[in-house]
């Protein structure tokens, strides 16, 4: 029993953190809100050059072949930077699925993903719209129990609003075909569950990162902002708001790391572990969002200051791939009825 990360894993995390600090700072993010794709120009290429896009691609397809426990810290960093690129979708969701299914789709897409030439979007049955469907290259789409790998060129998209200004949502029209089929029947069902778990885990990891950054921003602000002759961070009410959110976050954190192992190893407790992680991370990140807004006061309620971009990302990711209520419902079934 050794519940911790290796030095290599931590080093990769630190390297990515550095890249994102340089390239995905809040001004870059604000600019991304104004672009068509909602992405930071040039960032994907840099992620590819660093090896991030190939991390989970098997070696025979030009990647490094690492697993979910290696990815989880990177997704946390992506969350911390509120990084708008489809990193989770491409690296943590689509790639492991393609690698597991193998065959022509894997041969086509995995080298491109490793090389930074393809980004993926994910459309599961339970989600209403597909983020990045128009600018992605490959769509992983679910219909019933069947999973399909659909090239962007063969879908029709209609744009929808999102509360998160970096998120490009689309209603997608598409036709399943034998060519696009990855798996169906029992295999499709099992893989679909695994994809859903991976997606929920990826969202949970990002939520932990988002929450951490909101806490950091709030602490900085509370130390500097003076009212009634003292930094507002010296008021107990402000301290306790932040401490409560931080406490929730620090309890969610290990559950996300733990679930990454359950997903990587496909353990018996995968559903329960992922649900625990997604439920706790969603609630914790939301608590961080609320504490951040309240302790900053009006400034966090505006576009003058970066927090709102993090808060909106929290709003969409806490709902994505199963809200905390959905995951508690799944857990209750397994605990009480199982």
């Amino acid at each position, binding site marked *: 029993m050794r519940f911790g990360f290796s030095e290599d894993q931590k080093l990769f995390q630190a390297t990515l953190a550095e890249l994102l600090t340089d390239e995905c700072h809040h001004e870059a993010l604000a600019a991304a809100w104004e672009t068509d794709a909602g992405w930071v120009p040039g960032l994907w290429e840099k992620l590819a050059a660093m090896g991030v896009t190939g991390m989970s691609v098997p070696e025979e397809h030009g990647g490094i072949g690492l697993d979910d426990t290696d990815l989880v810290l990177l997704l946390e960093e992506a969350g911390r930077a509120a990084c708008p690129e489809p990193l989770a979708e491409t690296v943590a969701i689509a790639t492991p699925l393609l690698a597991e299914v193998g065959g022509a789709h894997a041969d086509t897409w995995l080298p491109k993903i490793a090389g930074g030439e393809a980004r993926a979007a994910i459309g599961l049955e339970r989600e*209403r719209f597909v983020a990045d469907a128009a600018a992605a290259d490959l769509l992983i789409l679910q219909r019933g129990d069947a999973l399909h790998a659909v090239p962007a060129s063969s879908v029709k998209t209609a744009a929808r609003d999102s509360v998160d200004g970096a998120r490009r949502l689309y209603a997608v029209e598409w036709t399943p075909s034998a060519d696009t089929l990855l798996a169906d029947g029992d295999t499709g069902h099992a893989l679909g569950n695994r994809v859903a778990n991976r997606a929920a885990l990826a969202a949970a990891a990002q939520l932990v990162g988002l929450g951490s950054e909101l806490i950091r921003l709030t602490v900085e602000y509370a130390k500097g902002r003076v009212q009634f002759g003292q930094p507002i961070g010296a008021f107990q009410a402000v301290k306790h708001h932040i401490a409560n959110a931080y406490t929730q976050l620090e309890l969610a954190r290990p559950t996300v790391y733990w679930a990454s192992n359950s997903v990587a190893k496909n353990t018996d407790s995968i559903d329960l572990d992922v649900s625990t992680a997604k439920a706790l991370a969603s609630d914790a990140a939301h608590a961080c969002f609320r504490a951040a807004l309240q302790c900053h006061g009006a400034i966090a309620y505006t576009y003058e200051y970066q927090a709102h971009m993090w808060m909106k990302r929290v709003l969409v990711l806490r709902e994505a791939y199963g809200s905390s*209520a959905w995951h508690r419902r799944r857990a209750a079934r397994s605990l009480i009825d199982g």
Partner: protein
Amino acid sequence: MDLEYTPEQQSFRAEARAFLEAHVPKNLPPLDTPEGFPLHVEWEQLLFDNRWAVVDWPEKYGGRDCSLLEWLIFEEEYYRAGGPQRATQNGIFLLGPTLLKFGSEEQKDRILTKMARAEELWCQGWSEPGAGSDLAALTSRADKVDGGFKLYGAKTWSTRGTFSHKTFGLFRTDPESERHRGLTYFLVDLQAEGIGVRPINKLDGDEGFAEVYLDGVFVPDRDVLGEVGKGWNVAMATTGPERGLTLRSPGRFLAMADRLVALAKDRPDACDDRIRDRVADHWMKAEAFRQLGLWTDRRIAAGEDVGAESSVMKLHWSHLDIDLHETALEILGPDAESEMKNGAWMKSYLFGLANPIWGGTSEIQRNIVAERILGLPRK
């Protein structure tokens, strides 16, 4: 205890309902947008022309001399009918009552009717970049000059400042003074020379706020409200005992709770017992606020001092509103994210998230409850 409305009250309600059902505009674009703003102003003018804009004001300024109870009835009907947010609200609910109490006859005659018919729109100029919760830390100043004052400084979080004609706020007239002393309450023309207005986008992306810069703006003596140097008292006494109810009327949350119930009826599959429990809880809390309003109306009538209890009310509805929206978002699930049109739950959630911040944060309100109502030590 008599909980039946009188025939007069019932017919007042019926009259309001008939007008509102016939005229409330549907699907307006958001108030804080260039498209939405003029349409909201148009609606305010229709309200005024039919004497529904300021029912509790004196008739000579366009009101009906209504009691607080009738005003509560009107508000219930206004939101029940789906009436839009009031473009005039910072004038008619914040400055209006202050003017009625502290203004000269000349000021009232000159200002109130135009305010009520949305001819002149007012925004508040309380906060400053360095003075938010700690309002008394304000540093904007007014220097006495011949026939008036010259104003310098910056005001922020002026709601709808970019759409307004006028602003009101406190400025330091005694440069030697500290904190609450030496402040004066000014009415300022936003067209005046020396004014700069910079829009600030709020959480939902609309230009809801503005920062107002004043660089030697001349304000004539007649636009001082109350006594020079007594601005703090004027500002604090702004609305008297009914402030708790007028800041946000119970009718607004009753209508919201009814909308939530309708949403739950509409999507039974999304409503398990947990959601149903929450819907019932929110509805009960909206109903409790309505009853507290009627209870408070009688206490005010009996001459009781209920001023500080506005903090109890603000704490209650600030958080009820947010909780209620979070339940709605849960019912909507993944659909919520993309609903950013006016009236949509997500948009209205973002709006409500400001409740525990503006008009005195929840932390300040809890201090007020603890210190002024319960008598706990200030320090």
